[in-house]
């Protein structure tokens, strides 16, 4: 499953980093605590969060995450978008709350 597939299946908006839509997705991680993500997310994960500042891209890049999904209609800040473009790691957004988008993502990843 690629990032572009989850964009399509979950009807996500691509905010930035479209060059990374071909990145391979290996699971997901949900947390708004940055050290928790740093310590526990894995390479290739899609990260669901409500944090919108640039530091999420530093983490996404260092951990080689597949993409970041901002929940509940949150939008990335401008420097977050720029960093996402530079790194080629997509920032996506959904109007759904975390519980619902996590459930939907789990469902499609489970079924391959």
């Amino acid at each position, binding site marked *: 499953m690629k990032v572009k597939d989850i964009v399509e299946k979950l009807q996500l908006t691509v905010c930035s980093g479209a060059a990374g839509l071909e990145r391979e997705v290996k699971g997901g991680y949900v947390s*708004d*605590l*940055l*050290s*928790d993500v*740093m*310590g526990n997310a894995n*390479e290739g994960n899609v990260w669901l*969060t409500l*944090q919108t*500042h*640039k*530091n999420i891209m*530093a*983490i996404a*890049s*260092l*951990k080689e995450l597949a993409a970041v999904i901002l929940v509940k209609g949150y939008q990335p800040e401008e*420097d977050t978008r720029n960093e996402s473009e530079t790194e080629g790691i997509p920032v996506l957004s959904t109007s759904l709350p975390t519980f619902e988008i996590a459930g939907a993502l789990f469902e499609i990843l489970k079924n391959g």
Partner: protein
Amino acid sequence: MEFNYEIEGGNFSHAGTASSEVKKLLKQLNVNPALIKRIVVALYEAEVNVVAHAYEGVMNVVFDNNAIVVKIADKGPGIPDINLAMQEGFSTASPAVREMGFGAGMGLPNIKKNCDELKIESEVNKGTTVTMITHLN
């Protein structure tokens, strides 16, 4: 081989830059990717601690055939009780820093888990030096 990277206290817009430089360097040096994954976690947490809790610092990386030794030395308030600071959940981060999602008190425990040897030296009102060693074999 030895490399130094500066870390600016209080400036979250550059947090992670030094760690990212060191990650690139380790990749160029063909360090085992599994080791890089661990080291990167420890580097980032130590870097962000300088940004969040201190005034300025330097990340010093010394690399030989046996180990990668990273020393992050800062000028700052220091840590009065290192054992307490090491406990998961302990944090003195400000409300503004917590709002950004920092301040879970997980940084130092993450560092401990992701290096082979950890030494923290600190003097109140002077600064803190975190030394982490990763063996290559």
